[in-house]
């Protein structure tokens, strides 16, 4: 490093400029602009007027917002945790040795390649109340039918299942990679001490995987919180706005009801919740980056 010529800052700047220009121009400045927007009364094509906290008050006193927030939280809470359990089970199964492991890994990755739109097309047919083969299978098994077109809770269950299907590959890969990184010696030592399978899991696997589980879970909370396409294409938030999630609520406020002010307030509530969800992760990272530098 010491041998580098002087005036390096001038040389390095053009290298990092593109990324920063893109990120500032497309993400940071617009996001800051949204703060300004959230304190204005503004609809598309009209000049803005400062209204203080009015937009926030309006959003926070709108029962549809709370319904959307509740729906989002319920879907995330159910989907992400189920995903973690299945992903963990699969990671352990894979690491315990399976025939054709590489091929199976590719099979498990497959849903990662599928668009939300294509996935919704598949699931809408599979679960179609009249002609869906899964609906028929459920009826044949004597289980209660999933009336997702009428019953809001069922619509959300279907969205949750779809979310799990689309994102399980991510969760699985993170946990599997972490499991492969656990040194074999730990298990050997445990076994010579006469530990049972459960004890090995409880005292070796789980503590060693804890950081990866935490990271995967935080990532999934943050990304699941953006949930839009699945809901929009599956139920459009209906019937009667009962299956909306926060992103759908935001979209409708902005682009259907032309209320950019309250949409902006919703957006910042979303960012605030995302940051809140991520504090643990950010704190960890900050420790790491300051450590590295």
């Amino acid at each position, binding site marked *: 490093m010491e041998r580098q010529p002087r005036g390096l800052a001038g040389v390095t700047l053009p290298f990092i400029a593109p990324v920063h220009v893109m990120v500032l121009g*497309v993400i940071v400045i617009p996001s800051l602009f949204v703060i300004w927007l959230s304190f204005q009364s503004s609809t598309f094509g009209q000049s803005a007027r400062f209204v203080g906290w009015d937009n926030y008050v309006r959003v926070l006193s709108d029962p549809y917002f709370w319904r959307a927030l509740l729906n989002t939280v319920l879907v995330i809470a159910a989907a992400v945790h189920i995903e973690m359990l299945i992903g963990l089970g699969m990671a352990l199964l894979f690491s315990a040795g399976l025939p054709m492991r590489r091929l199976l890994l590719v099979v498990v*990755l497959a849903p990662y*390649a*599928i668009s939300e*739109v*294509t996935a919704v097309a598949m699931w809408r047919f599979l679960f179609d109340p009249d002609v869906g083969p899964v609906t028929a299978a459920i009826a044949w098994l004597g289980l209660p039918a999933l009336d997702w077109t009428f019953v809001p809770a069922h619509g959300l269950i279907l969205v949750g299942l779809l979310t799990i299907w689309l994102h399980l590959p991510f969760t699985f890969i993170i946990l599997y*990679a972490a499991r492969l990184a656990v040194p074999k010696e730990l298990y050997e030592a445990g076994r010579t001490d006469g530990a049972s399978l459960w004890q090995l899991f409880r005292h070796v696997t789980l503590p060693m995987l804890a950081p990866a589980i935490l990271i995967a879970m935080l990532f999934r909370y943050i990304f699941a919180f953006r949930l839009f396409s699945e809901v929009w294409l599956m139920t459009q938030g209906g019937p009667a706005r009962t299956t909306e999630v926060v992103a759908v609520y935001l979209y409708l406020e902005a682009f259907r009801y032309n209320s950019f002010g309250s949409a902006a307030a919703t957006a*910042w509530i979303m960012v605030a919740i995302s940051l809140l969800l991520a504090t643990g992760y950010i704190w960890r990272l900050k420790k790491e980056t300051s450590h590295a530098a």
Partner: protein
Amino acid sequence: MRLERLLIGLGKMVAVILIVLWSVFPIAFVVLSSFKPGRDIFAVPPKFVFTPTFAHYLNLWERWGGFFDGLRNSLIVTVGAALLAVTASSLAGFIYSRHQSRFPAGSIFFLICIRLIPPIVVTLPLFPMVNWLGLNDTHLVLIVLYATFFVSLGTVLMRTFIDQIPRELDEAATIDGASQLTLLVRVILPLAAPGMIAVAVFVVVYAWNEFLFAFIFTATKAKTAPFVLSEMISSVDGVDWGVLFAAATVQLIPVLLFVIVMNRFLVAGLTAGATKG
């Protein structure tokens, strides 16, 4: 003991079958159904033996010509976004790897935090701005948006991959009088190719499949394939499932093959991306 082993083996087999069914059945069902004659699509239980037909594909060609324009738009946007993101990420990742001490830790930390902002948030100010610039319904808007939402991850990934390249190579090249750009292009990037591919895989899968931005920022000219698919799903005169399955198959097969071929890079990228930022 032998019974126990047998039971474990059996349990594993059941688990594997369930995993395969869960992951592949919806995809296989759509692809197979796109070749089924109209009535067989609705057969219960599903038919796995049938006379294959291309009727739905012909229908798709005749009645939804816009879908193929959508495919072309998706291709342009995907390639553009991947090129932009890989280039920008490689440039920045190189500097962050080699001149780390010159930057406050905050700089890369800032890039990571950016990933926390939900994409829908920026649509609010960007929508009027893009209209004002006359850029709505163009490929350029989507290319820039898709690339930007992956350059932060891309930069972190490239830094991780370039970190693994020995610095002695840099020193040798610099002594020979190579500029930073020559060093990057001639020495570093050929060795960091797996990283570039990993970044490209992320962007390609995202850009090819993305719905929200396409839905908000395009209307007719630059409409992508997922957007056209969404119109077919919510078609007012009822869904023609055969045609929808044909379109879904055409949309998903290229990206599915891509992910299968690139699975090593995807796995490497996912693990590096999650642990390093």
